[in-house]
């Protein structure tokens, strides 16, 4: 028998969302913290649970536009996500996305933050070269944020994204389908995020929850409290790519 937590790859897993429920407004975390994320639909948008032809489950975010109530998002209260309050330490964020270029806005993938104040977030943007960005917000440092990004995250395609951040480094790395990608960094690199007491949000701009909607599909989004190596991203990629029809 293989134990989930005994697999090396799952060591220090803090969030694991396989989106297996297939129904309802709640999605559960199979990492030890048992975070519970709740679907929110402020206006005309919707969520859809589904399965690919392979059987792979997914959660689809279906906004109807870029307006203040047009999108949908997942939320987990700040009090329940203190373990995702990354500041000086190592962390990794990854999972499978097949996103849509719905509006000209950046689309928030996942974050626990307040823009330009504290915390961290990942977002996608189609108009800037299909970028995936990681932002550290740190108003206490004078500059309100530092950002790094990579290009080539073509919408409409399943990608395994991976971000590994060593606390001792100012230069986190991104991986696409487990291959390192060319990175751009703010001058001076990525400074530590300020400590944040914010909800974990997926699919919308934090705090206002009124824009920057994420479009389309996600599966198996994960967060670790350590920096995954390229070999570990490759392990994940080769284990899971068959579900998404990716070579």
């Amino acid at each position, binding site marked *: 028998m*293989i134990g989930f937590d005994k697999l090396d790859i799952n060591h220090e897993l803090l969030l694991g969302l396989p989106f*297996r*429920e297939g129904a309802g407004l*709640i999605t*559960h975390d199979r990492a030890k913290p048992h975070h519970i994320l709740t679907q929110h639909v402020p206006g005309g948008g919707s969520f859809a649970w589904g399965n690919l032809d*392979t059987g792979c489950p997914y959660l689809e975010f279906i906004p109807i536009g870029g307006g203040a109530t047009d999108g949908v998002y997942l939320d987990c209260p700040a009090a329940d996500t203190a373990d995702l309050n990354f500041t000086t330490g190592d962390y990794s964020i990854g999972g499978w996305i097949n996103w849509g270029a719905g509006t000209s806005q950046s689309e928030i993938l996942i974050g626990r933050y307040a823009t330009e104040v504290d915390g961290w977030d990942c977002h996608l943007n189609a108009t800037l070269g299909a970028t995936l960005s990681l932002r550290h917000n740190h108003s206490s440092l004078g500059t309100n944020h530092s950002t790094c990004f990579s290009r080539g995250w073509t919408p409409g395609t399943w990608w395994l994204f991976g971000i590994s951040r060593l606390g001792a480094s100012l230069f986190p790395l991104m991986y696409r389908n487990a*291959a390192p990608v060319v990175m751009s960094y703010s001058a001076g690199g990525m400074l530590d995020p300020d400590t944040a007491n914010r909800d974990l949000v997926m699919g919308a701009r934090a705090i206002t929850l009124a824009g920057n909607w994420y479009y389309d599909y996600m599966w198996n989004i994960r967060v670790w409290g350590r920096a995954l190596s390229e070999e570990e991203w490759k392990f994940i990629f080769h*284990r899971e790519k*068959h579900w998404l029809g990716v*070579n």
Partner: protein
Amino acid sequence: MRIPQSGLRIDEASWPLLQAQLTYWMTTDADGNAYGTTLVCADLINFASYVGLPFKILSGPSQGQVRLGNVSAAGTLTVASEFTNAAGAAQQIVAGTRFVILSQLGGDGGTPPAPPSPGVGLWMFGECAPDMAASTTVVRCPNLAGLGDDLFNTEFYMQVIHNADAPGVAPEPEIRQITDYVSATGEFTAAAFTANVEANDCVCIVYGMIYTPSVLIQQIFDLVNAILVLTETGGTVTATAPGTEDNIYINDAPAGVFRPIGVMLNTSDLAGGETVIVRTRYRTEAGGALEIQGVPTLFAGVQAEPMKYIELKPNRFGVQVTIEGTAGVVYVWEVFYKG
């Protein structure tokens, strides 16, 4: 050896130097192939093989380019990779093109190095011709021409190792069995890739006995990867009210067969006069309804043994455990499953 003497006096100082540097100097007397990988010069049949020596074009669009000779047969020379023009496209070496075969000395100053022919390796690198038509099955690599018709059929495989205009995208890194090989052009036919192989892509040709073990390893990996993993998740549910069922655990559309084991339900928040009913449902066909299995279980009042265990069965199409109980009572639960 055939080198020009016109304009040279018998005691010309450059004559021995020319003899040392050049092996053969001539003009092609017929068109080479359209892929730029052959030169035709009937006079060559009068001389020993020059395979392994560099061939340099002296006139025409490819003038100045040097390629290694791979094969020499019946007055036709095949070079290791195509001659090209200013646009980078394959350039046919037509009749009347001046060329020279350069002398290539070995490290001991004497014997030339052994020619690469026949040039067949267990792993070979192929460059798709710049003018190659996109195809899922036919791939032309001029640098692999001249190795003998059908040599690679069946026992060799082709892998696309670089998609030149879309790195990382199919057909990279697919691998397919080779079914035909045309020596004159370096054209391979393989089982169909899922996307076109295109000009300037890079491939490798791999002998089956090398490739097969990696296939077996992949198959073993796939088997291991399909082993169900003991996994746990859980949460907290607050009962809505009698008449409303709240999900504890649900997997409404599993990816495939899996093994739910059981749900641990903590009823320690249940007080006197409060009740909860636990129900388990299964779906046994795609698109079917979730149907109750077993008798719904009622728990009423304070529980002497508050931790309840609901055993679950193997499943393919969906499973659900719900509670229906007094409003506001909080239940902490966890589920174990192999999935």
